[in-house]
Structures are given as structure tokens and as C-alpha cells.
């Protein structure tokens, strides 16, 4: 489904933010990436749909290398990759349903994008998705009037509108209260189990990762330091992922 091989990235050409990252993600599974702040989690996620151009490696999505695509091919590939953000990134002045419908614009014509032309089937799907995330009654509310948890659910519905094969979530629950956190995580797990979508999530909450993940990837200092089923994530393994020891001594000296 998605395989990342030897991914490397440096923002400034000097300091390596990612060094040789390899892992794969399977359909119908929730994969969680954990690791200390600045480890490179966001960088990995955004490299997958090429929001940032990485320096080296291979990103095989459905057996095509995302890095080799030209602009229009990349745009088409992105149509099947959903993405969910910590800050929701909805168009706040528009209604929930309009935001959800944006999800299907990638595959439609310029005209449809400019005049908001959607087929009845798409409208029906959008409503069903809002229903699925429990927001049917809020369809015609402006998004700026929704709560954080509701916004994130609109964000999920929008991603689902893309009929994605994979959903990338960058800290989807970082701004949410405990109750909304559970709602959102339940929805995401449900997508993996019932719809066979691969779900890849960046998280800071280890307990949530333990509860929801099928597979855990630990990142430290731009390197994969853990890659196994959730059952194998022992307390010692967690300490290993988060400790600074994963950084070679040499570069510590350089830092100070």
C-alpha cells in the first residue's frame, strides 16, 4: 500500500531532519508514529504527499514513486490521500457541508471548482459522511461556529470525501478535550477496520497510541528506532524512543 524507503531530508542542507527512514503501512491498519518533539514526525508525513520535497529515498504509494511524478500526476495522486491537521484547516466562513464537498473537487473540472458544481451523488455522499461523524444537524453551520472537536470531525469527513486509500493525521487530537479525543480516535479506528483505509497518525500521547494502534513506529532524531506491533511496545521501548540517548554522543557535543 504505502512503503517508504531510505527517506532523507534536510531543510537547510546541513542539519539532517530525516536520515534513512524506512517503513511500510498496510491497508485496514492504524499505524501510529511517536517520538519526541522535533524528531521529524511532521516531516515524514508531509513528505508522503510531497507537501515538502524530500532530498532522497523512495515513497511507493500503490507501486508508484510519489517523488517521480510530475505536477499534474502528483495532483491526481494527492486526490486519493486524505490529510487531517491539528488546526483542522477548514475554510471557516463556509458551512460544514461545503467544506466536506471540497474533498471531491480534486477530481473535478475547473468549472466545477469555480461554480461549486456537485452532482447529486456527491451531495448525498457528503451528507452521509457528516452523518457518520455525527454532525448531520450541523451541515449548514458556518465552521467558525463549531467547537474544536466538531471541526476535526468535519475535517475527517472532508478527507473521506476524497475516497482516500490512506489518511495521514498530524497530531489530530492535540487541541482536543478528552471526550472529543475519544470520539475522533474511535472514528479513525473505525475507518481502518470497516473501510479498509490505512490510517497513519502522528501522536504525542503514548497511552492513546497503545490503545488504538495496530502498529507503532518510533522516531528519534530523524531515525526509526522502533517499528513493531503495538503489543511489543514495552515501557522500556518507550523510554528508548524518547530518551536523548538515541542521539549519537558526538552531535551532542556539537550542539553545545
Amino acid at each position: 500500500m504505502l512503503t517508504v524507503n531510505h527517506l532523507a531530508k534536510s531543510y537547510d542542507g546541513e542539519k539532517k531532519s530525516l536520515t534513512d527512514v524506512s517503513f511500510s503501512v498496510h491497508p485496514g491498519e492504524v499505524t501510529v508514529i511517536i517520538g519526541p518533539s522535533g524528531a521529524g514526525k511532521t516531516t515524514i508525513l508531509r513528505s508522503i504527499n510531497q507537501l515538502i520535497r524530500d532530498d532522497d529515498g523512495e515513497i511507493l504509494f500503490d507501486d508508484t514513486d510519489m517523488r517521480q511524478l510530475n505536477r499534474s500526476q502528483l495532483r491526481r495522486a494527492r486526490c486519493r490521500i486524505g490529510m487531517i491537521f491539528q488546526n483542522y484547516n477548514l475554510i471557516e466562513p463556509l458551512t460544514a457541508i461545503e467544506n466536506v464537498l471540497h474533498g471531491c473537487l480534486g477530481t473535478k473540472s475547473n468549472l466545477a471548482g469555480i461554480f461549486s458544481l456537485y452532482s447529486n451523488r456527491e451531495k448525498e455522499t457528503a451528507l452521509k459522511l457528516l452523518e457518520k461523524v455525527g454532525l448531520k444537524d450541523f451541515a449548514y453551520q458556518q465552521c467558525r461556529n463549531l467547537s474544536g472537536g466538531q471541526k476535526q470531525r468535519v475535517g475527517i469527513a472532508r478527507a473521506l470525501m476524497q475516497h482516500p486509500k490512506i489518511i495521514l493525521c498530524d497530531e489530530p487530537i492535540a487541541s482536543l478535550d478528552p471526550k472529543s479525543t475519544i470520539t475522533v480516535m474511535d472514528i479513525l479506528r473505525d475507518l481502518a477496520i470497516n473501510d479498509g483505509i490505512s490510517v497513519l497518525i502522528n501522536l504525542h500521547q503514548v497511552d492513546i497510541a497503545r490503545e488504538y494502534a495496530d502498529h507503532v513506529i518510533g522516531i528519534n532524531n530523524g531515525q526509526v528506532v522502533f517499528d513493531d506491533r503495538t503489543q511489543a511496545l514495552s515501557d522500556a521501548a518507550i523510554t528508548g524512543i524518547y530518551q536523548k540517548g538515541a542521539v549519537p554522543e558526538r552531535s551532542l557535543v556539537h550542539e553545545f
Partner: protein
Amino acid sequence: MIKPENQISIPTQLPSGPRLSIPLRFRDRRRVTILLTLAVLGYITLMTLPTMIPSHFKLTEALMSFAENIKIMFLQPRLVNTTFISLLGVLGQSILLAFLTTLIGSVLAFFFALASTRRLAPTSLVLGIQSFMAVIRAIPTVLWVLIYSVVFGLGANAAVVGITFHSVAYLTKVYADSMDELSPEIIETMQAMGLKKSAIIRQAIIPNLIPSYLSWTFIRFEINFADAIAVGAAAGAGGIGYQLFMSSSFYFNFHEVGVMVYMILAFALVLEIISYRLRAVKHQ
């Protein structure tokens, strides 16, 4: 830096908290900059003021006559050479001129702004368009109207095109600045969903732009109204400005000037009430 205009019509919350916690050297740099600027301005002013009064100038006489004219204007407004109805007509013309130039300007400027916002356009294009607009903005509106009245002949065409020039240059900048305020993440999100540029503009940029688009356009309408009057007087382009010019420098009739000033003030009052309302709506 927030342009001051931004504050008067779009009350943006000033960052009040962090200002106190700025490191000392930044506060020092600020203080030095302010003191130096004030010193330079003060020096220029003090050196200029005495040179402005001509050698044998009777200041008291001038002041007396000025006070007298102000009194005539405000306390004894009266019409002599023209009728109130015809004045209403020319006021209407100035308003139409302001409206038309704002309308054309806002439409054209919108497209220029799209081509010169950092969110969508490449840096070279942004810099190119913005510098071009800065040059156009630097030329006062009156000069544009005078130039076009040679090409098109004196009249509405020259007035409209001349005022539009300045409006486009001004609005392009403020619209582009408003678009720049939109978070880059929003645009990235749309790109990550595979949206085309046209769809991003229509579905993400426009909905977010509408409030500031409206308030800036309204501000420009107020400026264009003032410009329409000035252009009427200085370039003979008609409207109430031309009447004002004739009454004051041809007939020397300040009673009449008073009537016109009252009419203009009445319209300005209407605009001020509207802008107050717009602001109240925006604050909700």
C-alpha cells in the same frame, strides 16, 4: 507593520501582552529610533516654519480675513449663482464618479492582487507587480487626470481613468496584503487534497477575503469621493469640486462655498455612519 489605515477601520487587536516582555535591547532600539525620528522631524519643522512666512506679511490681517471667511461660510451659507437642485446634481456626479472608479478599481485590483500575493504567485511576479503599483501610487491622482485629459480630452473619461489608476494601485496592495494574512497552511491543505488553483482561489481565498475586501473597498470609496472633489477643482473635471472652485476663486463667494461644504459634510456624515455600522457588524 500594520498600516495605520488598518487600525482606523478594521480594529485589529494590538498585541498588548508580549510587548512588555521584549528583550531590553529591542526596547532600546525602538526608543532610539523614535527619539531620532522625532528629533529629525522637529528640526525640519523648526527650520521650515520661519521661512514660510513671507517678509512683509501681515499675519493678523490674514487671520482676521480667514476668520471672517470661515464665519461667512458656516454661519451665512447662501446661494447666489446657482440653485440647490443643480448643486445636488453636481454632488450626485461626484458621488457617481467615486462609485464608478471604486467599482472598476476593486474588480481590476482583485486580479492584480491574486497575481501578487505571496500565497499563490512566484516572488519575482510579486515584486514586479508591487513595485509597479508603488510607482503608480506615487503619482498623485490629479496628475493622472491631467495627463489623461490631454489624451482623451477633458471630461468624464479622463476623470474616471485617472482616478481608477490610483485606486487600482492602492487596492492591489491592500488586497494582496489581506490575502497574505491567510495562513499558508490553508492553501497547503487544499493543495494536499489535489485542488486546482482556480478551485483554491474560489473556495479558500475568496471566502476568507470577503470581510477585508469590503472594508478596504469602502475606505477607498471614501478616498475616491475626496479625490473626485479635488480632481473636479484642480483639473476642471466637473462635479461639486468644480463648482467649489468656481465659487471660491472666480466669484469669491464664500456664502456659496458654505452651502457646498455643508452638502459635502452631510454626505461624509452618511459615510461615517455606514462605516460605523460595518464595523459593528464585523465585530459580532
